[in-house]
């Protein structure tokens, strides 16, 4: 099963290597790993999507927490989360096909960020399934290239009673 793990880590050199090295050494499978700054300049947040059964996920959490520069580890499984991927995708779009493609982009609430003679570049964000679905519908037109951020996520605020 896929789990989204969020790790608060110290913002210093070598931390990414500590984390990615541990994943490789222990043969854990990473789907994606995203690092970014947080509201605290001394801390970064890593969002890691991992595949594995309960036993493996338990080890992932524990081994992560064991790393000295890792301050906090949260597994979002079972939590109400907002999870988002961001993608830039360049699609083959000869003039005749453009209206069709633009309609699709609109349906997926994507945004055209660049247009060339033969291609359009689209920015699209959302849950992973939406991104995957968009890639699928673009395939018949021809995809030139794709760049994705990987998942970032946050737990939803509890509703006030």
């Amino acid at each position, binding site marked *: 099963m896929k789990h989204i793990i969020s790790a608060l880590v*110290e913002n210093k050199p070598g931390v990414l*290597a*500590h984390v990615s*090295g541990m994943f490789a050494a222990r043969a854990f499978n990473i789907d994606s790993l995203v690092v970014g700054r947080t509201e605290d300049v*001394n801390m970064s947040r890593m969002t890691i999507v991992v595949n594995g059964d309960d036993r493996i996920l338990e080890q992932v959490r*524990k081994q992560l927490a064991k790393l*000295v*520069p890792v*301050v906090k580890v949260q597994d979002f499984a079972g939590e109400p989360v907002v999870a988002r991927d961001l993608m830039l995708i360049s699609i083959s779009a000869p003039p005749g096909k453009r209206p069709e493609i633009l309609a699709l982009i609109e349906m997926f609430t994507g945004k055209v960020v660049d247009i060339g003679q033969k291609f359009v570049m689209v920015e699209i964000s959302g849950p992973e399934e939406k991104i995957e679905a968009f890639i699928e519908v673009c395939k018949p037109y021809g995809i030139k290239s794709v760049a994705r951020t990987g998942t970032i996520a946050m737990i939803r605020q509890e509703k006030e009673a």
Partner: protein
Amino acid sequence: MSAKSHKSAGEAGKSATNGGAEKSPAKAVSIPSLSSQRSGAEIIVDSLLRHGADTIFGYLGGVVLPLFDKFYGSPIRVIVPRHEQGGCHMADGFARASGKVGVIVTTSGPGACNIVTGLATAMMDSIPLVAITGQVRTELIGNDAFQEADITGITRPITKYNCIVKDVRDLARTIDEAFHIASTGRQGPVLIDVPVDVEVAKCEYDGRVEMQLPGYKVRTKGHGGQIIAAAKAINEAERPVLYVGGGIISSNASEELTQLIAKAHLPVTMTLLGLGGFDQNKEESLDMLGMHGTAYANYAIQNCDLLIAVGTRFDDRVTGKVKTFAPNAKVIHIDMDPASISKNVPVDIPVVGDAKEILKELVEKVEYRQRKDWFATIAGWKKKFPMKYDRNSGTIKPQYVIEQICELTKGDAIITTGVGQNQMWTAQFYRFSRPRQFITSGGLGTMGFGLPAAIGAQIAKPEAVVVDIDGDHSFNMTMTELSTAVQHKLPIKVCIINNGYMGMVRQWQQLFFEKHYSCNSLLNPDYAELARALGAEGITVDLKADVPKAINKMLAIKDKPCLVDFRVEKEENVWPMVPTGKSLHEMDGLDILQSLI
């Protein structure tokens, strides 16, 4: 140039001996300086002393010259090995024998790379080390400079933590953090990489340092509810067994363990690294378990209804086939490292924390139970399957040598080993009675560990009798360190169980590869001659009748190392043996043992 450096090395050696004679570790050094500005090298020296590291192991090289210059005349005693791997194992042996943090200093590139095996050895066995490696100048890093190696990259998976210090103002704090991380929680080696310009750069320093480790938390106290649950399970168990590992030794919990065993009346078995945690001469001891463990320990595990694991990690050499390990038991696991819990074997009652603290609480909550049937069953196994070898053989049996060493040292020596048959026989036939008495590379199984570890142990415990029971080929790997022992007049004893083979490998080749002794006949030197050439005493023993005499002669030597080359039976095997992939009770060789008288 060479003459000059030779002279200063001699002088440093002299002042080092003086420094080493000081009993209490100095709290701060007075480095003459007008301002409170200190160089990185001075900060390292002062920080080491603040942590009581008055004896360290180190080897020279270009980028650590500023640092070694500050060792000159300092109260720190620097033991210089002949190879950095040896130095790292010495620091390890020093740490295991003393309970203190071992320190190893090397130059960049080749020097740093040479301690890789030593760090991995310490990592696997959770031994507290601080390694300080020199690095090329900060602005050269990444340019494939002369003697540059990315040592933090190389050692990341084999250290508990490592980092490079690029600003002298971070140096003191980082060293404090290194000692703290190495010596707390589940202990382990920490490496700090220090570029040479950081050794030279100066900053304000007054010895007051504040650590910044927001991500490092150590849990020492066990969860109260879990301890109550564990006590209840123990009190209810009909057939409990304690299974303890190196964590007992590193948390200094031997006394509490002994109290628990006496109060609740429990049998106990130890892993290779746990040996010494409980006195093997006592009735409750089932000795070592696992692949080459005793039949009575392995049967006890397979038949128990409660397994109480303390400071141990369910290693595959211990469990055999994991699925059928202790098949009928409820499992309590007391360990410092949450990641060790339920890693290999599912645990019913986990208690995370320091073994010493937890056992102390547990002792208060357990009740005595006779468990007559269980102890009778165990006594039956002990009687039916005792550890044995052919005592009547005309040749020198390796087990006989070890038994004799045990007897003639009154079971009181600090023992180190090589890896292989020599190591397993030592674990089987020496009777250990106290913690930190048995020093061996368990997790990594590093051949060549025995001699340098013995040197480190002897330096930590000058009054102790330290014996390295080694394999011929293990000894071959680091034998150059005999010179180091001679230089420092260390009376270590090296007993080579010389079977002329990589014996453990030969055993596997015999059992599983149709006796194809592929690549297993190497030329060995005359070890006694070699020892004498290096300035140690050397004795060769060819006859069984000479074994006790030689050991006594060896023990009488107090001013230099003594090596004894025991020419033992070449094709003796270690029994019993649980073949890989088999369950603990499926031991081979019991019939062989039983056929002996």
